[in-house]
C-alpha cells in the first residue's frame, strides 16, 4: 500500500495536489484543539454566549464571532473535524460492508451472487436523501457514530458492486485457480491471493464512500434538517444562511465552509483520479498532458 502511494505520487500531479490539500486539512483538524486553547480555553467551541455577538475579526478572534457569541475560527475547525470524522467513519463502515458483500458475492458466484447483486441494485436506485433525513429526524440524541452509521447505510452498495466486478475478473486468473487446487481454504485464498491486487480498488471504493457520505451529510445539515447538537461544516452553512450573512456584508462566514468543502471534495477526487491513472496507463495517456 505504501508502495502504491509512492508510485502514484511519482506519476501523477493530480495525486500530489490532492494528497497535499488533504493532508493539510486533516492536519488542521487534528491539531484543532491546540488552536482552540488560546481563544476559548477548555470550553467547547459550540457553547453559545461565550463572547459578544458579531465581533469583527481581531487578534483574539481571527475570524470574529457569530450570532450566538461563539468564536468563528474554532467553530470552523470543530466543523472540519467532525465533518472529516463522520466521512471517515461512514467510509470505513460502508467499505467494510460493501467489500464483504462484494467479495462474497463475486467469489461465490451462482445463485448467492445473483441474489446479492439484485439486492445491491435495488438499494442503489433508491434515492437515499429523503430516507436519510427521515431517519436523522426521528433519531433522538444523534451522535457522530449513529450519523455515520445512517450515512453508511446507503453508501455501501457502490463499493460492493465495484469490488464484485474486480473479484469476478480476478477469479478468472490462473493464480487463484492454482491456490484452489493446492487445497487452501476459501478465506485463505481470498486473503493471500486476491487482497494485494484488490488494495487499490479498495482504496478507491473507500474514497468514493467518504465523498458520498460527506455529500449526504452536508446536504442534510445545510438545509437545517440534521441534528443541531453536532457542529459540522454543513451546520455552519445552515447557520450562515439563517443569520443572513449576506445582508451584513460578512460573506466569508458562508464562503469559508463552502470553500473548505469544495476543497475536500476536489482533493479526494484528484487523489482517486491519480490512482486510477496509475493503475490504467491507457487512461493516463488519455488524460495527462505529455
Amino acid at each position, binding site marked *: 500500500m505504501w508502495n502504491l502511494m509512492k508510485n502514484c505520487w511519482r506519476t501523477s500531479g*493530480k495525486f500530489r495536489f490532492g494528497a497535499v490539500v488533504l493532508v493539510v486539512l486533516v492536519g488542521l483538524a487534528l491539531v484543532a484543539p491546540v488552536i482552540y486553547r488560546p481563544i476559548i480555553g477548555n470550553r467547547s467551541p459550540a457553547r453559545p454566549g461565550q463572547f459578544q455577538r458579531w465581533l469583527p475579526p481581531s487578534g483574539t478572534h481571527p475570524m470574529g464571532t457569530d450570532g450566538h457569541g461563539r468564536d468563528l475560527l474554532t467553530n470552523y475547525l470543530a466543523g472540519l473535524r467532525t465533518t472529516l470524522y463522520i466521512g471517515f467513519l461512514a467510509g470505513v463502515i460502508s467499505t467494510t460492508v460493501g467489500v464483504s458483500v462484494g467479495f462474497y458475492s463475486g467469489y461465490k458466484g451462482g445463485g448467492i451472487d445473483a441474489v446479492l447483486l*439484485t*439486492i445491491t*441494485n*435495488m*438499494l442503489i*436506485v*433508491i*434515492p437515499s*436523501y*429523503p*430516507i436519510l*433525513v*427521515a*431517519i436523522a*429526524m*426521528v433519531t433522538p440524541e444523534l451522535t457522530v457514530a449513529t450519523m455515520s452509521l445512517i450515512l453508511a447505510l446507503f453508501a455501501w452498495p457502490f463499493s460492493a458492486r465495484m469490488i464484485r466486478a474486480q473479484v469476478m475478473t480476478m477469479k478468472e486468473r490462473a493464480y487463484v485457480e492454482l491456490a484452489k487446487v493446492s487445497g487452501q481454504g476459501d478465506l485463505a485464498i481470498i486473503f493471500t491471493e486476491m487482497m494485494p491486487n484488490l488494495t487499490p480498488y479498495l482504496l478507491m471504493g473507500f474514497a468514493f464512500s467518504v*465523498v458520498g457520505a460527506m*455529500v449526504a451529510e*452536508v*446536504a442534510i445539515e*445545510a*438545509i437545517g*434538517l440534521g441534528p443541531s447538537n453536532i457542529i459540522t461544516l454543513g451546520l455552519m*452553512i445552515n447557520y450562515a444562511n439563517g443569520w443572513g450573512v*449576506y*445582508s451584513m456584508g460578512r*460573506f466569508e462566514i*458562508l*464562503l469559508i465552509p*463552502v470553500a473548505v*468543502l*469544495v476543497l475536500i*471534495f*476536489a482533493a*479526494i*477526487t*484528484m487523489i482517486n*483520479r491519480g490512482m486510477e491513472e496509475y493503475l490504467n496507463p*491507457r*487512461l493516463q495517456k*488519455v*488524460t495527462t*498532458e*505529455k
Partner: protein
Amino acid sequence: MFKLMRKYPILNYYFTKFFAYFLTIFGALTITFFMFRLIPANPIENWLRSLEAQYSLTIDGGDAMVNSYKEKFGMTGTLWQQYVRYMYNVIFHFDLGPSFINFPRPVSELLAEALPWTMGLLAVSISISWVLGLLVGAVAAWFRDSPVSGTITNISIALSQVPAYLIALFLVLFIGYQWKLLPTRGAFDGQYAIGWNLDFIRSVARHSILPALAIVTVSLAAWILSTRSLVISNLGEDYLLYAEAKGLKSGDIMTKYALRNAMLPQATGLALTMGSMMSGQLLIEHMFVYPGLGQVMGRAIAIFDYNAMMGLIILSVVSVMTASLAVDLLLPVIDPRIRTAIKA
C-alpha cells in the same frame, strides 16, 4: 414461449431486461416501504398537533380521531396487511394515497402539479450541460497539449464530485445577493398572470437560470471529462487514419467515424443521468424554493408525510429504471457488437 426464446435469443435478452426492471422496482419499493414504517415516527399525531398549532385550536376526539385518520392513510392492520394494501393500490390503481400536505389531496395530484417544473428545469439544464460538455470536451481533446486544455481538465476533475448545492450557494451569494442580477427564490414573479404571456415566460426563464446554472456547472464537468477522454482515445484510433487515407472529407470523418463511435457511450450516459439527476436535483429545488418535486420533498419531510415521500421515491426509482431499461433495449439496435454478443 421458452421455445420461441431459444429460437430468438434477442427475445430472451429483452425478457431478461424487463424481468430485472420490474423485479428491481418492486424490490426497491418494498425496501423503502418497510424502512419508512420501521422509522419510529408518529406522523398522524404530529400532523394533528401541527394543525392545532397552525389554527390555534384543540382537536378533540382522541384515539377515535387518530384511528379514523389512520384508516384513511392506510395505517391500520398488521404491517404485512398495510404492505399488501399499499402495493396493491400503487400497482393496480396508481394510487399513492392521500397526503398530509394539503390533506386530503392525493399524493399523485401533488406530484403531478410539481412534476412539470422539475422536468422543465431538468430538461434545460441537462441539455445545456450535455451539448456544452460535448463541445468543450471535444475542443479540450483536440488541443490536448495546450495549457488551457490542461487547466479545463483539472478544474473539471476537481468539480466533478462537488455537490451541486455548494455551487448553488456560491451562485446565490454572488449573483443573487451581491450583484442582484437574478432572482433566487421561486419559479416566477407573482405579479404576472400565469399562462402563455411574454412577461410570465420571461419571469420563469429568469428564475430558472440560477438553479439550472448550479446543476449545469457540476454535470458539465463530468460531461467534459468523459467526452474529452472518449474523443482523445478516438482520435488515436486507426480507423480515423484509415478514413483519412481513403481521402474522405474531414467533416465526413468527424461525423461518420469519430462522433459515431464517441456518441454511443455518451448517449447511453445521457439517458442514465436523465433518471438519476432527478433525485440530485431535489435539494437544489428546495434551496431555490422552486415549486418542483424538491419542494414537495422538503414539505413532506418536515411533517413526515409517509405517502408523499414514498410517492417521490417511487417516481425517482421508476424514472431511473425506465431510463436504464430504455438504454438496454436500444443498445442492441445501435451497437452491432452487442447484437452479436446476444446471439451468441
